[in-house]
């Protein structure tokens, strides 16, 4: 069968009707491209940088707090607090594989340095947390370790990936400095002064020790508003701070006892409580990571954790819900658009083939098989679908680029670095073009089958009498 000849003449003949089909394909493919590109772009360019990239089976637990407006109060005494005993309760929950405490520093700490980056020496208070090296093992750059203070006395430090983004998007432009890459940050050293604070005046007897800190990696587990050091290091420093402070306090109390003998016994009783607390090794905890045995148990374990009186960091969950709601709404919209497009295509073909049923009857009377006619119709649809799909994808890409340009022109500076808000992945474009092609082809199948169902003689008799 000289199919191409026939196809060409039919396409030329029905181009107006086929243009309607093509427009439906263009509309659906461009919509698919825009929504898909926007959805993927927002997810990869906006949501993902905001979301800590934690594995699904790793939950972050926070101390339960009661909030009155913006002010939150820790309610450790009400059973939702986190301490080492609470961690044991968490470890005992069914489905929990491991629990990693986030140890908080119980003493002030000051960071000094920055000449290499900003040209002058600065000092600032930092908030430090301690994490298990096992948890962040994968985040430590090659050639570095995150176990404890190294042989040269340097403290390994992890910083939050988002902290770098915040610096690059807000601090760097403000002080007219170039953005930092993660590679540039690794190995950067600064001074940590334990027991010192810029904001708080040192009290009598406060110890003060200097250490060199070195950034060894970026981590999504790391403290967003400070630095993260090895758990064992921070626990040791907390003990050092408590013991040193206790020793100084004891000496001061002894001196006062000589002059205020009557109060000495009561003070002594009070002091007697502290060593017991220290002996329990109760470091302050700002949270914990709970690793679950299996992703399938996440929901179950989350519920058990909440029942046990703990609170989970719900930021990722809320963002996840927002993303999911967005995806569902987009998906529904897309579904409606695609459904309408397919219906339009099918209806256009029904009308088109209805008009041409007499021609098909002639072709069949002259020897065309049913499948020849069906193939002819579906091929027409495929050609129109392919052209429409390429046109639709091109239009969609244009719209997306325009949308992104408009977005960056109108958008205020955000505390996160946005490289893009749309995604033009080849997969999306291929998928969109493929969808248009398939929708058009499939939309013509049923009309084509119906068009060849009639006996040619019946159709021809209708005209010739």
């Amino acid at each position, binding site marked *: *069968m*000289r*199919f191409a*000849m*026939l196809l060409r*003449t039919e396409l*030329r*003949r029905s181009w107006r009707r086929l243009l309607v089909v093509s427009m439906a394909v263009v509309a659906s493919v461009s919509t698919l491209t825009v929504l898909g590109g926007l959805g993927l772009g927002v997810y990869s360019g906006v949501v993902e940088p905001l979301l800590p990239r934690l594995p699904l089976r790793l939950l972050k637990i926070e101390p339960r707090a009661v909030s009155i407006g913006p002010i939150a109060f820790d309610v450790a005494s009400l059973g939702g607090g986190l301490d080492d005993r609470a961690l044991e309760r968490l470890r005992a929950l069914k489905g929990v594989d491991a629990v990693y405490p986030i140890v908080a520093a119980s003493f002030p700490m000051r960071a000094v340095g920055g000449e290499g980056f900003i040209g002058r020496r600065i000092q600032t208070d930092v908030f430090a947390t301690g994490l298990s090296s096992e948890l962040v093992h994968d985040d430590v750059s090659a050639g570095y370790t995150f176990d404890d203070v190294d042989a040269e006395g340097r403290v390994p430090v992890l910083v939050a990936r988002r902290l770098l983004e915040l610096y690059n998007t807000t601090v760097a432009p403000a002080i007219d400095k170039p953005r930092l890459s993660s590679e540039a940050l690794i190995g950067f050293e600064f001074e940590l002064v334990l027991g010192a604070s810029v904001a708080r005046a040192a009290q009598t007897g406060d110890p003060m020790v200097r250490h060199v800190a070195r950034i060894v990696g970026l981590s999504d587990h790391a403290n967003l508003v400070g630095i993260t050091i090895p758990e064992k290091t921070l626990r040791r420093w907390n003990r050092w701070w408590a013991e040193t402070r206790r020793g100084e306090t004891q000496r001061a109390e002894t001196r006062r006892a000589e002059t205020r003998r009557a109060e000495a016994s009561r003070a002594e009783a009070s002091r007697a409580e502290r060593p017991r607390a220290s002996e329990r090794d109760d470091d302050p905890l700002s949270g914990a990571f709970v690793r679950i045995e299996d992703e399938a148990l996440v929901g179950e374990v989350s519920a058990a954790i909440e029942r046990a009186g703990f609170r989970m960091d719900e930021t990722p969950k809320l963002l996840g819900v927002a993303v999911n709601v967005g995806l569902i709404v987009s998906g529904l919209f897309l579904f409606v658009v695609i459904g309408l497009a397919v219906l339009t295509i099918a209806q256009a073909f029904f009308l088109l083939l209805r008009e041409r049923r007499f*021609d098909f009857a*002639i*072709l*069949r*009377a*002259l*020897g*065309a*098989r*049913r*499948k*020849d006619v069906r193939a002819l119709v579906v091929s027409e649809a495929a050609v129109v679908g392919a052209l429409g799909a390429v046109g639709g994808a091109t239009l969609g890409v244009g719209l997306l680029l325009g949308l992104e340009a408009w977005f960056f022109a109108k958008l205020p500076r955000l505390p996160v670095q946005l490289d893009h808000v749309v995604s033009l992945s080849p997969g999306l474009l291929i998928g969109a073009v493929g969808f248009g092609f398939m929708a058009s082809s499939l939309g013509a199948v049923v009309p084509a089958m119906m068009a060849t169902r009639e*006996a*040619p*003689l019946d159709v*021809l*008799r209708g*005209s*010739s009498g």
Partner: protein
Amino acid sequence: MLSSNDVLLELVRVQKSFLDGETSSGARRTILGGIDLEVHAGALMAIVGASGAGKSTLLSVMSGLDVVFDGEVRLNGRAIKAMSDDERARLRNEAFGFVFQSFHLLEHLTVAQNVALPLWLVKRSAKSSKRATDDETDRIREVLDRVGLGDVSPSASVRRLSGGERQRVAMARAIVHRPHILFADEPTGNLDDATSALVISVLDDLRRRGSAPSDRGTHGDGGTHGDRGKHADRSKDADRGALGDGGMHGDRGALGDGGMHGDRGAPGEHSVRCAVVVATHDPRLARRCDRVLRLEKGRLEEVAGDALRDALAD
């Protein structure tokens, strides 16, 4: 002697009836009441009858367009009804040609494209397809020339053609693929006298020379005139009544006298012996046919002489 292969198409007790829409009793109206007929290679056969007698229905049954009937239609001994839909489509494409009363041209195609349609529908390998394409243009020109449209541009739209020209395009389309049997349903029905005469001469020429343009010059007029004589004799023989088995054998015997062999040309030369079956009420066309069969009340009778005159006068 004519071999049994010369019987191209054979109808055996073909019956067809419709539910009579004009009565509420659900009675069936018989259109074809047990028709027996043989169509031989090289025959020019007319089926006459009043409007609504079933001429078009008979042609549809013979050509495999209509397979809803009782009895059998055999092409070269093979029952058409037993063939698959695809096989019948191939049959219509390769063995049969059709000329419809209403032309049934595809209006969006040019003259050449309409004529080429049967060639386009032929399933070919890629290699033979290229050869066919090379041959196609010449073939189209030849058939257009043969139906008297040599001066019409092949690239002209059929919309611009007159009724007679359109009918001749339809005839060119019907013979371009060198069918074995050409079915023509009232081919002069919608035409004026002059154009009708032209169409009749084309059909007559087709019968005399075969459907293949390349056969031109291989058939002598004398041979075909001889045919007509034989057929006239045969018609007289068959004038005894409805065609029964004996009648058909008698036909075969008459044809076996060898008149049609003259049509075939020299042995070994490519030739297509085309039978032409027309449904018509045009006396001029009927008179040019070898056999005239009247369809009336579901029965088919061969008519000749006075009976033929009377039948055509009806």
